[in-house]
């Protein structure tokens, strides 16, 4: 362990340290970071989606540069920049990181890795653990997600070492949305596929430059159709899927196609459980359940 004299040799003499200058550098860095965060976000929101996705991802890198420059500026003001002093400083820093602020430091390092590896960028739609949402900001220690329910989730970068990250758009403006339809199996499959395709092709949210695919699969409870299509703006994904769902149901109803029993079976199960759990009589069973089972 270094004694007090050795520590004092690493540091400059107390009266030689320009505290005011250090304070100004720290304050300047802080102001620059705040400006970068505020103006960068404001600028990105004002521009169209394409430009937004160029600006937002560059913000964390800019922030990292500001921090590195500030630290590189301050360190020589505090210590004598000799090789011995630098080694001693690094040793002391490593010790502190290893014991006292291990997780914090790991998050910082993961944040630096994430800045350059870019598994996500601000503006991306990612799923990390149970949280799905748009990346609001990527800080040095943690990232902030905004979920569709308007809840901000802060996830420390430390989590990235051990958790899979699902990125839906990976820096692009659009992302694929899958809209599900569960239909009674007795119907004209070709006509239904064509109609669901038309439902997607006529959505104002649709990015017509990307393909629209309707896939079908048989299940125990009926036929499962999925529309795979891309909205122009990833932020519109829920409105897009709602639009497809509502218009798709209307179109299928016009065709005389019945919806599948999957939801009806769920309703029945829940109804039965609820009626057992209480003494109240069960609500009437949906008429679809009186029909011939699949």
């Amino acid at each position: 362990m270094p004694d007090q004299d050795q520590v004092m040799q690493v540091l400059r003499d107390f009266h030689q340290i320009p505290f005011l200058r250090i304070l100004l550098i720290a304050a300047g860095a802080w102001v620059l970071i705040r400006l970068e965060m505020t103006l960068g976000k404001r600028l990105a929101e004002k521009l169209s989606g394409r430009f937004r996705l160029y600006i937002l991802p560059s913000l964390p890198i800019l922030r990292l540069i500001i921090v590195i420059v500030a630290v590189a500026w301050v360190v020589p003001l505090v210590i004598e920049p000799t090789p011995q002093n630098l080694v001693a400083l690094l040793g002391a820093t490593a010790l502190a990181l290893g014991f006292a602020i291990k997780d914090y430091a790991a998050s910082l390092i993961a944040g630096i890795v994430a800045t350059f590896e870019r598994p996500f960028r601000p503006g991306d739609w990612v799923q990390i653990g149970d949280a799905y949402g748009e990346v609001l900001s990527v800080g040095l220690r943690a990232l902030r997600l905004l979920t569709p329910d308007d809840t901000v989730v802060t996830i420390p970068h430390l989590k990235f070492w051990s958790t899979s990250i699902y990125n839906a758009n990976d820096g692009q403006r659009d992302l694929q949305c899958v809209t599900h339809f569960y239909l009674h199996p007795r119907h004209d499959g070709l006509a239904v596929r064509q109609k669901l395709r038309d439902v997607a092709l006529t959505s104002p949210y649709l990015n017509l430059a990307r393909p629209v695919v309707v896939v079908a699969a048989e299940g125990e409870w009926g036929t499962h159709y999925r529309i795979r299509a891309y909205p122009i703006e990833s932020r519109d994904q829920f409105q897009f899927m709602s639009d497809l769902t509502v218009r798709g149901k209307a179109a299928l109803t016009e065709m005389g196609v019945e919806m599948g029993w999957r939801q009806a079976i769920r309703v029945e199960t829940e109804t039965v459980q609820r009626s057992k759990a209480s003494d109240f009589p069960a609500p009437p069973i949906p008429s679809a359940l009186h029909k011939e089972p699949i």
Partner: protein
Amino acid sequence: MTHSDDDSPPLWQFVPLDQYTRPPEPAEEKMRRGLRGLRKLLKRPRNRMHDAVDKESLQMMGGEDLGWIAPAPQWNYGIPALDECLQNWLKHSGGTCPLKVLVAPPHSGIRQMVEGWAAVKGWRIIEPPHSGDILTPKKDLLRDVHAFGEVPIVISRLEKWYLRHHNGLEVMRRLLEHLTSRQQLTLLCCDSWAWAYLKKTVRVDLAFSSPITLGAFDEKRLSRWFASLAQVKDARHFVFRHPESEKVVLDTSPTDAEGEEDERSDFLSRVAAHSRGNPGVAHTLWRHSLRLWLKEKETPQEDGGKTSREQENSGSRTLWVIPWQLIDLPEVPHVDDNRFIFLLHTLILHNGLPTDLLPHLIHFLSHPLAEGLQVLQASGLVRHGQGTWEVTPLGYSVVRRFLLEEEYLVDDF
């Protein structure tokens, strides 16, 4: 400037769609647009009237003046060129390729030319189905098309045969199937936006090969066209100039006095670039930029050239055109949601829509449709007439650029 040079292309010319060449945009204009975007971003509105021009001295022309200085286009003048192109088709490939399609952007007047040509040639014009029939197609919907058997027909508004609705593509599919399975001579005319949309949705481009279009109106064509439109009064021709700089924009005199004494303006090349070669849009911009000079003013030119008054005395009359940077173009209002994008895109994809049909195609907006349309109308981007909403010629290029920047589907022009 007013004459057609012997080697210059004809005013009206039809070209294959893939050979359409837009007039180039001057680099200065690109820079100016970039600066305007930056200014908009920083919320500093542009000063519309530059200090050098006394705003009160200039007055927009009234309908009567415009009626003889820049009257409404007579699209019939394009019919001979169309006829030449179509005769070529009928002579060489009409038997093997009975379908011919013309594609053109809104306001370009091509539909009027096609219908005029059909009237001259006695081809039967098939009217588009009623919107209700498109949304709930009946089996005998194509009875009009069937009725004429082998008689040549013209479908002059192909864009009115579909709607962007889940039931709105069926009629178009049936029509394409019918037309491609017969040998009936058919001339079709389609709006360029509908064409772009139908290419993506029903592959209309596979059904009709080699579409043609009206050649772009570049600076030279616009000069000749505007000069020919201006009606000479009292045997005096017009010299169109910018105020203050007195640069000549257009001289309609029969003797070409170009460029010897007077500095020429690049105004018409900017109009051509902004309108993307669309004559209807360019014509509207031209009318929008014409002004009357209220004060009697004689501004001698630096090079000692003739004053405006001297020119008037010598048999010409000077009219004023505001400089390009002072033209007041509409702007798309900024809102946080996409209601204006959807409204504008829906209107432009259908080349206008009746009021009662809009709720069927845009039913999901959180704001009332009428409110959005009124805001767009107040901005000068859309207009309402005979129960139909459409994008204005003045707002057309603005709307196109806006949709392009937002990465929505745009036409090929």
